[in-house]
């Protein structure tokens, strides 16, 4: 990083490639790409030490459009490839780009394990609740009843909540963002980068062709203040246009509820304060859905633990300190004899 001080500070434009972006016009991916490029500029990323790894799907074309190193791999397996990249060179800053199909269906197993192992990387899961690249079949996050080419009578599969999955898998960092929320997303992504371990960020991303407006009930800008809550560690979870609504804990039912401050005896002090190190709270927050609740965005959970790559290299370094690497001695260990 020291070398960078003499060089002019990079802007988001420095992270654009010469490749023509080939997503559908109006796709949410464009906004996310911009947010990522802004994030990279903001955090002072070094292009040559940054690697984007992706699987297969619309979102997985991402690496071609970021002026860093990039690896567009195979369907579902990006977490494993990214793990190999990080193990081979822990100095690289690894970003994983995946989707609801790539990361939670064909690659669900790898997603589970990259989170469980806590490999130091940023995982951006673009959730559009549909298979876009294969022309609109339902995905593991599609709602019950979703009518698609493969579910003409409506989907009967129970959908998965990506953040619940991540917390269940043992992720130490779970956050949420919205494709078009260009003000909030770079901050959330920068936090993900700061966290030394697997940072899981679900990004609600609109598929304009096959699943348009599926998130509109909480992403519409003019309603956003009432339908979203951007949580911050140590701050009360208050939201609403009037800043008069809050999340409260009903101890009797052991659930979260919404309340209006000043009504039914609810005071501002009764509103829960966000504690991003509290896993139980995180598990409750990610389950809240619109329209009954605001959709929770921002850093929901952050509770660091040693990352897998750090632990692996700690062992390697220790072994190097304790044992001399002498190959000729190695293959002569045990019982040998000499033929004259």
């Amino acid at each position, binding site marked *: 990083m020291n070398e960078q001080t003499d060089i002019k500070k990079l802007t988001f434009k420095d992270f654009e*490639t010469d*490749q023509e972006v080939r997503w559908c016009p109006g796709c949410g991916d464009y906004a996310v790409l911009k947010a990522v490029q802004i994030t990279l500029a903001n955090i002072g990323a070094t*292009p*040559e*030490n940054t*690697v*984007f*790894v*992706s699987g297969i799907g619309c979102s997985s074309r991402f*690496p*071609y459009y*970021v*002026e*860093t*190193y*990039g*690896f*567009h*791999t*195979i369907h579902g*397996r990006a*977490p*494993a*490839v*990214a*793990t*190999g*990249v*990080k*193990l*081979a*060179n822990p*100095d*690289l800053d690894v970003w994983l780009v995946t989707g609801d199909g790539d990361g939670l269906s064909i690659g669900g*197993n*790898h997603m*589970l*394990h990259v989170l469980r192992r806590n490999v130091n990387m940023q995982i951006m899961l673009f959730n559009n609740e549909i298979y876009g690249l294969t022309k609109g079949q339902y995905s593991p996050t599609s709602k019950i009843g979703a009518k698609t080419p493969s579910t003409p009578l409506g989907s009967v599969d129970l959908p998965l909540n990506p953040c619940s999955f991540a917390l269940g898998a043992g992720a130490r960092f779970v956050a949420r963002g919205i494709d078009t929320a260009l003000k909030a997303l770079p901050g959330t992504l920068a936090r993900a980068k700061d966290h030394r371990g697997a940072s899981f960020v679900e990004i609600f991303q609109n598929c304009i062709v096959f699943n348009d407006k599926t998130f509109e009930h909480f992403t519409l800008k003019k309603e956003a203040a009432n339908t979203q809550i951007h949580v911050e560690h140590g701050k009360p979870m208050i939201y609403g246009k009037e800043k008069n609504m809050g999340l409260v804990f009903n101890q009797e039912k052991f659930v979260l509820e919404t309340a209006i401050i000043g009504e039914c005896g609810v005071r501002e002090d009764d509103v829960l304060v966000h504690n991003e190190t509290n896993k139980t709270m995180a598990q409750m927050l990610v389950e809240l859905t619109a329209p009954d609740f605001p959709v929770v965005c921002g850093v929901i959970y952050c509770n660091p633990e040693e990352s897998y790559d750090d632990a*692996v*290299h700690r*062992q*390697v370094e220790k*072994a*190097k300190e*304790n*044992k*001399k*690497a002498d*190959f*000729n001695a*190695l*293959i*002569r260990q*045990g*019982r*040998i*004899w*000499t*033929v*004259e």
Partner: protein
Amino acid sequence: MNAQTNAQGFEELDTVCIRFAGDSGDGMQLTGTQFSVVTALEGSDLATFPDFPAEIRAPVGTTFGVSAFQINFGSVEVSTAGDEPDVLVAMNPAALMVSLAGLRLGGLIIVDEGSFNKRNLDKAGYLENPLEDDSLSDYQVQKLDITKMTLESVKEFGLGKKDALRSKNMWTLGLILWMFGRARKPITDWLEQKFKKLPDVANANIAAINAGHAFGETAETSANLSRYHVGQHTTEESGEYRTVNGNQALAWGLVAGSQLGNIPLLLGTYPITPASALLHTLSGLKEYGVVTFQAEDEIAAVCGAIGASFAGQLGVTSSSGPGIALKTEAIGLAISTELPLVIIDVQRAGPSTGLPTKTEQSDLHQAVWGRNGDAPIVVLATSNPHDCFDVGIEAVRLATKYMTPVMVLSDGYIGNASEPWRIPDINTLDKFSVKYCTDPEGFHPFKRDPETLARVWAKPGTPDCLHRIGGIEKDYDTGHISYEPGNHQKMTDVRAAKIAGVANDIPEQEVSLGTSEGKLAVVGWGSTRGSIHQAVKRAREENIDVSHIHISNIWPLPRNLKNLLNSFDKVIVAEMNKGQMNNLLRAEYLLDGHSLTKVSGQPFKITEILDCIRKQEVEVG
């Protein structure tokens, strides 16, 4: 075994084949391994064949729970584990039931009479006790109550009966050591070391060895036991030797390759029989910069290795047939992105789960052709445990020089079998430097070396060589995504030409025994090498015009192979599958080979190949 009695009362033998057989819990693998070590230390040539069930502890006393270890050793060159054992050690009725058919007529059977009770006889399927009728009259039988004598020998250590009986194998080993005049000390030293923290266990085992040995001494006359001597194999090259098994040698070969190429190695793998030992060995070599990643599955394992290669290291993945099948799509990614990758396939009998602990060579088609698209890779085969070391190095060299996956076909027999190995000095082995691109001048990721056709390798972290690659077709001139039809033709052609060009970088095919033209040739690959060698040697002693051609470079094939094969009137292709190499040679050269195949999970016997040679000689006329 042709015997001649020497001055010390030992009958002198050229070679002996012993099969130790018992229950899975009887410690037969350990017994055989220890006997192999002392045999090797005394300078005999040897080959071993561990033959064990897939179950960790099958029900006691059953035939499917029999675990056996065969060792063939001699004062002459020994290249197989032996067709027919001369000596069978059977620790229970099931072991006798399973192993008797393979024993040489007139051979010696040593049985633990104490285990031949009704219950064990029933489990083995004997209606009558074979020790009491004349069903073993074609053999010499030594009925010894090993159970009872072991219990007596370890009485002073106060072990429970179950623990005391664990020393039965050592008592037996003591007797066999006496019988073949082998030293006990290397084994007692090893026991003391192994059970350093459990001195009672060490002492009980040593007492059992000594008791077995003493029994031989005292019972020599009464029980009419003979002693045999097998001398040193004197034609060995001078140097330091040790025993090594194939998986161990392959793991070391990969590390040697990593050292010689000065490139760190990352193994991504998932446990599977019979390949797991590679992971066990490599995970203990962290001081060589080796990183091992036990992934969540076979696919993640190969993908982790590919990720490491993308980052500039050597990615290695290891498995057996079913796991290789799972890795197939990812291998395609490594082909398309032209990244180095070493894939180890320690083959086992298939299809599907097949016979996990039994050997086969049936992944050849999978290795050469088993991917979507036109997807050529380099395929090498190991032929015996010590060869694994050299093949490991060669795989690393070719993968990094040509930016390609290289698959190494080993098999369960090679992986588990031990043999003497002349230990190399790594300082005398050829270094090869792996090249990374750091020059931005005219850089694009698919810029090729005009000679090898390998693409440049710029690893992340290199300034001004930023690039993005993936499994979508790349433009030949820029490396960017390209859907252009003519470009795909060109890229497919260049990927094929690159692999075909490896033929100029590997040795020409040699004749391993015999002449470079003639009436008959036996072609083999992999672990059949020893059996074919011995069969061809014997046939030549019978004045049959036959030569042995052993192929190690499976793909691309050696550049002179076609002409060489065409110099024989008839080619026999012997392999442990349904004729896969024969198909390959037919496809490539229109060779009308005679296919000799075997898929019983057991290696070829020398006589099976010899019989085929004799018949083909008559047919060719």
